């Protein structure tokens, strides 16, 4: 039997799209978070780390990104930090013109898990950088961006 949980949510949204009121993100939570302007403006990895600080490697960060991007314009990236006291999570795409792609504030008492979509201009190492207890930690993996075609 083929199960059709399949397109349910999507079909439901298509049918009821107009009627759904999107909940407003609790912006207040982010009020304390200061945009890391200088790090966002940096044009290489060293520049980003010069602003944020230099992270050390950690095996307590789980970084999920595709091995090969299906669409470099919207690459799903997920970061989970098991480091106690995680307060910030950054996503850095080394080879992008501006490597720092996303910065998240993790309010105390919330699960240190974020998911986002980032643009990856070309094959690049992706870094998940975590701030916890005033220190920086990182892990990385490569996502390949290819022209596509020619398979099979």
């Amino acid at each position, binding site marked *: 039997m*083929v199960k059709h949980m399949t397109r349910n949510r*999507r079909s439901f949204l298509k049918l009821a799209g107009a009627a759904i009121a999107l909940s407003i993100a609790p912006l207040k939570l982010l009020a304390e978070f200061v945009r890391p302007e200088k790090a966002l403006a940096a044009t290489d990895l060293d520049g980003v780390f010069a602003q944020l600080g230099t992270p050390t490697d950690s095996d307590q960060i789980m970084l*999920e990104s595709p091995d090969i991007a299906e669409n470099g314009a919207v690459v799903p990236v997920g970061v989970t930090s098991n480091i106690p006291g995680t307060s910030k999570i950054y996503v850095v795409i080394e080879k992008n013109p501006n490597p720092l792609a996303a910065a998240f504030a993790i309010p105390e008492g919330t699960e240190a898990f974020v998911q986002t979509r980032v643009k990856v201009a070309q094959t690049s190492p992706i870094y998940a950088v975590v701030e916890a207890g005033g220190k920086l930690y990182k892990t990385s993996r490569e996502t390949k961006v290819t*022209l596509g075609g020619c398979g099979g």
Partner: protein
Amino acid sequence: MKRREFTQMLGLGLAAGMSLPMLNGCSRKPASSESIYNLPKFGNVHFMHMTDAHAQLMPIYYREPSTNIGVHEARNRVPHLVGDAFLKANGLPRDSHLAHAFTYLDFTAAAQQYGKVGGFAHLATLVKQVRASRPGSLLLDGGDLWQGSATSLWTNGQDMVDASKALGIDIMTGHWEFTLGADRVMEIIENDLNGHIDFVAQNVKDFDFGDPVFAGHTMKEMNGVPVAVIGQAFPYTPIANPGHFTPDWTFGIQERELQEEIDKVRKAGAQVVILLSHNGADVDIKLASRVSGLNAIMGGHTHDAIPQAIEVKNAAGELTLVTNAGSNGKFLGVLDFDVQNGKVAGWHYQLLPVFADLLAPDPTMSALIDNIRAPFAKQLNEKLATTEGLLYRRGNFNGSFDQLIVDALMDVKGAEIAFSPGFRWGTSLLPGDDITMEDLMSQVAITYPQTTLNSFTGERIKFILEDVADNLFNPDPYYQQGGDMVRVGGLDYTINPNADSGNRISDMRLNGKPLEASKTYKVAGWAPVAEGVSGEPIWDVVSGWLRNKKSIPLVAAKQPKIIGLNDNQGIA
């Protein structure tokens, strides 16, 4: 005569080590049967496996590669052995049915001697024979079943859906199926497969919500033993093929989700768990080592016909078998497990070649195929030209059929250079054979057949070659896509498969002159992955060219200069 001789060869093959290593407690007698197709039953759990049939309902010729280079860990490792090295590693005798089935050696003479391979009517006979000796067995198909022929394209996959139901396929996964478009795939699953064939794919999700698109697995009880088959569709479908066919779906290897799926079916009582995969052999081998709880990965995609099951130590330190069952209906894999007290006590695997001359066609399937083909008989049988030489595709670099296609493209489009995708499907023709429209379609039958003429700089051309080379030769199989190198017309180049990404291609020359990075060249191609590209279908371009030529002299398939390989047994 042929059958007897084949049996004798088989005997040799088995004596020389074609039968497979057993786990402790396994007591299968060596096969000394009248025929390779009379496999003694072993155990109580049985899976038949076919993959990458590419819609070849009729018997065909299919030349295995003379170039199948493995790099880094895959160097000189199965399946990256060709010719004599392949025979030696698998204990197969030269000049035999089996040598012909598994290698390119003396291809033309051997094909003339041993005849065509595959064909659903012949395959159906073999499936029935295996089922008779192994009641309850399941027939698994690894995908690339609904694409690759004229009739599959012209019927929108319906011919293959009907034939696969008649064949008795129980469970399948997919790749080229998705190039029919998401709606057509769902229509087939809902209307045709429902209650007949379970379409499984744990690694296909809705892009926005992460909801599963298909069932991840199916569970069955076989001779009192609960078994589960998990599906793994081709992880890079929307990259290797146009993503616009499945705009709402995301794929990928999905190791973590796969482990969760395995744990779920084990918890539900499955005593044998199989991953039916379209990963490709090297990805299968890596994946087998990184998850636990799988008894076997039965895979396809890279079209590797691997006679023996590969024993991989999985993430829990236990055994996971990896099998790959070739392509084009040429082989049927049979994997037996002996399950005692809830545990696998032994196993046996054999990959059976389907020789049309050795297996009588199944009358029901023959009739079905006749019905499918009748409305198209005139188009299928149209003779376009005659070939004086062997035409084939498979191999890391240009095959002669691809050379013909790029030659035609350059000629018709007035291009200096032509590109053709490194597909691994595409059947072979022997010297003196007619090239019919059906034969041409077996090289080009896709749902995005548009031809193009572009102006590319030398720099762009190098970038394209480097990009495809990395999809073939990246040291990590998870970064490979499983096709062969893009076929190139007009251009000479040197390739170092072992070099780093971006540095494999050098010395690109056009008519002896170095390609200039900033100069613009006219490049013809086909099979665009972008949406909305228009252009004459490739079959119109090539058929018109063939009709004018009438006779095609021996085609020398242009090969790049290959450097940096040290004693690599993946190249003849």
